[in-house]
């Protein structure tokens, strides 16, 4: 059966928009090559994580009239930095740093100027000054301006442990015994699924999963929305718009562009989402993304896309250049950034007042809902999910209706951008 004229025209416009967006260098690099590189880098991740940082070598001078801190500091430095109490919970401990420092105890405080000169020319890695005042002993750590943050952390934490060691010793206690008593017990937490299978619990990762879903959706939708905005402005400024309108109606053109860029957003979603899933698969943690979460993504993607796309395309049709578009797009972008700003409180309390209210505020609603629905700690009431879906769908219809009317008039307009009153006139024009 022959394809109907309108369907054919929408398909041809959509394919051209899709093809000439996906085949641009920017898109190939951003949406295909970059995730490809990320995907290829997944097997290398453990190697990268295990790589060592630069060794911490050289001299450290400790001005300590009592000489006790200097000795304790020397002992602490001999330990693996990863084994110090303070560093136990530090994520950066996954990489190791070799420490080979010579600790020089300086009992004479008058040598401070001489040592500071050495510090400034980097012949000294650190200068520690221990002094006493009415409030008790105070400790200063001076480091060269170019010292690495990682090395500074090691010095700080080792010094902190050294001071603690001296305090414990002064109290006639055995430091090693106390540290063993205070060592944090390791808790092996596992989630047990309804089928009885168990999986390791990593609470932080579970908090990040909804954010990952939301960022993925946001990135795909906003990126394709921007392509839609710029391509519409380009078609207006290159005067190709009237050529197109000689062959298609404004509504066919609008539909074609929306469908074409939906494909672009879909490709981005698949590429980045695929890399994310592959990454989780590589570390055997695919269970943090159950199938219902992916289904929710499929449900909310079109609602999020068409809301943003209709705003972008109507703005693109109303203005003559990108600068004008950026000034008009401000209010919509503020609402769209709400889920980016509030993702943490929403994920922590997905059924709280903030999350519930934001679920019904377009155009942020789809992003907020994906945050709530993919969070693991509380189930969102189904009625709220359905209501939010209805609100978002109604918003899509309303924005598309307004967008189509603005598009119909705006595409042939040149010159200064319309005032709000003119925009209203365009919307009401027959």
């Amino acid at each position, binding site marked *: 059966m022959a394809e109907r004229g309108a369907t*054919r*025209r929408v398909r*041809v416009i959509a394919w051209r928009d899709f093809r*000439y967006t996906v085949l641009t260098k920017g898109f190939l690099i951003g949406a295909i090559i970059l995730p490809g590189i990320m995907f290829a880098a997944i097997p290398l991740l453990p190697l990268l994580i295990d790589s060592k940082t630069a060794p911490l070598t050289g001299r450290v001078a400790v001005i300590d009239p009592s000489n006790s801190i200097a000795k304790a500091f020397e002992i602490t430095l001999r330990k693996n930095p990863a084994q110090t109490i303070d560093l136990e919970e530090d994520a950066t401990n996954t990489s190791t740093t070799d420490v080979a420092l010579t600790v020089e105890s300086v009992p004479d405080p008058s040598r401070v100027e001489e040592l500071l000169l050495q510090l400034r020319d980097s012949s000294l890695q650190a200068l520690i000054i221990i002094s006493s005042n009415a409030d008790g002993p105070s400790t200063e750590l001076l480091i060269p301006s170019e010292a690495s943050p990682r090395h500074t952390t090691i010095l700080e934490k080792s010094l902190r442990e050294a001071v603690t060691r001296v305090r414990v010793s002064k109290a006639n206690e055995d430091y090693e015994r106390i540290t063993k008593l205070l060592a944090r017990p390791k808790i092996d937490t596992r989630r047990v699924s309804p089928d009885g299978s168990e999986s390791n619990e990593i609470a932080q990762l579970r908090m990040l999963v909804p954010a990952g879903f939301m960022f993925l959706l946001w990135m795909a939708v906003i990126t394709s929305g921007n392509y839609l905005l710029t391509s519409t402005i380009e078609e207006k400024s290159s*005067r190709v718009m009237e*050529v197109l*309108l000689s*062959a298609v*109606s404004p509504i066919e053109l609008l539909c074609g562009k929306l469908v074409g860029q939906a494909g672009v957003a879909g490709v981005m979603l698949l590429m980045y989402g695929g890399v994310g899933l592959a990454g989780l698969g590589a570390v055997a943690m695919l269970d943090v993304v159950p199938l219902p979460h992916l289904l929710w993504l499929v449900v909310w993607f079109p609602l999020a896309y068409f809301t943003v796309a209709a705003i972008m395309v109507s703005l693109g049709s109303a203005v003559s250049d990108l600068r004008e578009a950026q000034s008009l797009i401000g209010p919509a972008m503020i609402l769209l950034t709400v889920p980016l700003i509030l993702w943490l409180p929403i994920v922590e309390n997905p059924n709280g007042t903030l999350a519930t209210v934001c679920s019904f505020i377009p155009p942020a609603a789809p992003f907020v809902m994906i945050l709530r629905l993919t969070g693991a700690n509380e189930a969102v009431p189904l009625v709220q999910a359905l209501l939010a879906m209805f609100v978002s769908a109604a918003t899509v219809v309303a924005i598309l209706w307004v967008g189509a009317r603005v598009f119909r008039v705006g595409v042939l307009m040149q010159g200064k951008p319309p005032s709000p009153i003119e925009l209203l006139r365009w919307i009401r024009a027959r």
Partner: protein
Amino acid sequence: MSNIVIQLANVNKRFGVLHAVRDVSFEIQRGQVCGFLGPNGAGKSTTIRMVMSILLPDSGVITVLGGSALDAKDRIGYLPEERGLYRKMRVADFLRFMAKLKGISRADADSRIRSWLERVELPNVSQKRCEELSKGMQQKLQFIGAVLHEPPLLILDEPFSGLDPVNRRLLSSVVRQLKENGTTILFSTHQMEQAEDLCDQILLIHKGEKVLDETMSQIHSRFDPRTILAQPANSIDTATQALKVVAGIESMRWSLEQKSFEIRLLAGVDPQRAMVDIMRATPLRRVELQRATLDDVFVKLVGGSVTKFEATSATEQVKVNHG
């Protein structure tokens, strides 16, 4: 089947306070070439955009190929006034895209593209990007986009502007061939010679109002200036004295530009008879009855503040001026 391809009835269009098109009505018959003339800002492009359903009229009815242009876009070819191409697209891809929009299969489109590129003397450009072509070449490319699907109705907005004389002639001959093949053509232009050469019908619009809607022969008969050009063989003074006695002359003046007398005749005087009388009165190198050009008609109708009433009684207006 109706022979009327385009019909406008009492069409109006306003842009804010500007009344761009005022109560315009006209018809274009099948197979006709209609020149759409008017000064800049007269409302030609707005009218054409309404015919194409790119703009909607505020009031009035527009029928194109028996219905709305929206339903007949595949059967209309349109070259807009403002040229536009996808700059980064290759020539063949752009034309293929336009062909697909008009419902032509890829294989058919490719053979038509090859043929048309040769016909408008654009060989070896199919793999070039549109932005690499000169302005004139881009215009020809866009013209191909308008005719590729062999539409029965072709609407061309200023098709010859910006073209050099060689390409103007080339495009003009293509338009003539399309006319011979039965295509109905509406084209706006400021090139009066081209319009006179190609058109069966002339529509003149001024300040949004139609001021002329006639066939070329009607225009020639209605805008007969009744002026004889006579170049004397002897001195001007001698010839002036001799011509004073010829009957039926209303006025006479020497034209330095034409190096001839411009002799205006009284109403009702037979120009053929007057020419014989003038030749008898004085020896002449040349004598001819001046014919109104479209250029003259255009200047006459839009040069001053012409109203619809004045246009419909244009013949009388000429008489009054000469009286």
